[in-house]
């Protein structure tokens, strides 16, 4: 093996990688926030009394969960314009990731919803709260506490999925890494640094979620 490690070239482009990481985080943040809204609505659909709502929500989740995200990303960027929906790269990707994450988050939230004892709703009804008030003051707060651990891992895996944006040339971390790889030929260094950035960010996110979990834990 005649290859010697030399990080100098990668350090020179480190700013690019950091910018890429910032964009990755930005994409993830917007997509997951939108995904949480979609997921929450879908989750209530999944546990709804109405068969129609349950079926509709279930169909959405099943389709998304069983389709590769890369196909979805390419589909919305290259095929949707044929239907008259023309979006920029970033918008198209964020939209795709939001819809994609919505399905996974819906499953997470559903699990949390069915873990809230029915007595909680009844107690809310008994003091005269409306169904909406019960949802916002009782069920959603309890559900969120139930799901925090799996919510954390879902968010981390969605953050990693932002790497797929590289496939449509969104200049996020993976795209920048590949560019530096091709331009500098410092192959090993580039990928070590890029992976480390991902791993570090994921660990940071995990630590953040654990802190939130501790913060929100109900004292007993």
């Amino acid at each position, binding site marked *: 093996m005649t290859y010697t490690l030399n990080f100098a070239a990668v350090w020179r482009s480190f700013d690019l990688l950091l910018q890429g990481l910032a964009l990755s985080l930005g994409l993830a943040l917007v997509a997951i926030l939108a995904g949480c809204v979609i997921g929450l609505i879908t989750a209530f659909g999944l546990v709804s009394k109405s068969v129609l709502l349950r079926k509709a929500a279930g169909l959405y989740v099943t389709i998304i969960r069983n389709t590769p995200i890369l196909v979805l990303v390419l589909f919305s960027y290259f095929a949707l314009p044929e239907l008259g929906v023309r979006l920029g790269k970033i918008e198209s990707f964020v939209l795709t990731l939001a819809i994609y994450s919505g399905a996974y988050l819906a499953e997470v939230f559903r699990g949390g919803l069915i873990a809230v*004892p029915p*007595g*909680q709703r*009844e*107690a*809310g*009804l*008994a*003091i*005269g*709260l*409306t*169904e909406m*008030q019960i949802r916002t*003051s*009782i069920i959603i*707060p*309890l559900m969120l*506490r139930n799901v925090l651990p799996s919510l954390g891992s879902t968010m981390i895996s969605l953050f990693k999925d932002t790497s797929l944006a590289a496939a449509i040339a969104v200049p996020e971390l993976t795209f920048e890494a590949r560019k530096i790889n091709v331009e500098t030929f410092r192959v090993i260094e580039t990928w070590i640094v890029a992976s480390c950035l991902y791993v570090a960010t994921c660990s940071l996110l995990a630590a953040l979620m654990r802190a939130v979990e501790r913060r929100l834990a*109900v*004292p*007993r």
Partner: protein
Amino acid sequence: MTNLLEIRDLHKRYGTVEVLKGVDCAMRQGEVISIIGSSGSGKTTMLRCINMLEEFQGGTIAIDGQEIGYETAGGVRRRKPEREIARQRAMTGMAFQQFNLFPHMTAAANVMLGLVKVKKMGRDEARTLAEKWLDRVGLLSRKDHYPGQLSGGQQQRVAIARAIAMNPKLMLFDEVTSALDPELVNEVLQVIKALAEDGMSMLIVTHEMRFAYEVSSRVIFMNQGRIGEEGNPREMFLKPQTERLAEFLKTSTFN
């Protein structure tokens, strides 16, 4: 004068199983009525119909002359709008077997929730009222504790405070001591007794025969979805008129 509670020919089915087969019952302001009977007799179901936690298919329930849950227009019976039902539910207060305190809220916040969200009270006013009622059930010192930090008896007392703070016309107690360790039963019964002495109108589903005997102005014995017998506790417990009640009392313990 209209009765506080008037139930007429109440019918309730789960699918094809009829659990209430025509219950009639009238209750005056200030009465304390205990409902006894074996499990499956329909006593809890009847209680839950009064605040529409259960739907019912026939008959009417009225509180203060107001029909609960359903309205009949042009011969068609339909469920009232959710908002209206929510308002009607606030006329009654309910304490549950499993307490059902909101685990993510302190004792005070549990009591305040309905005051703020339903009664649209300001937070300060709600807090003052919550503290007053927590004091009444002897738990003012625990107002900032979470349910998980309280014993079962304490949780049930908070739950009673939460219901009573809403100033209901009628309190419903659904086997409130059944989930408690024996040594915690008494503190809860004391709270209910004190409320009875204050003139609160109460419907109490219970297995505690001695308590029912002591606290009630009237006792209703439910049997197979109907009222099997009713009367004042002395006569009921000492001279049961029906075979069924005599049988039931024989298998219950007085302590």
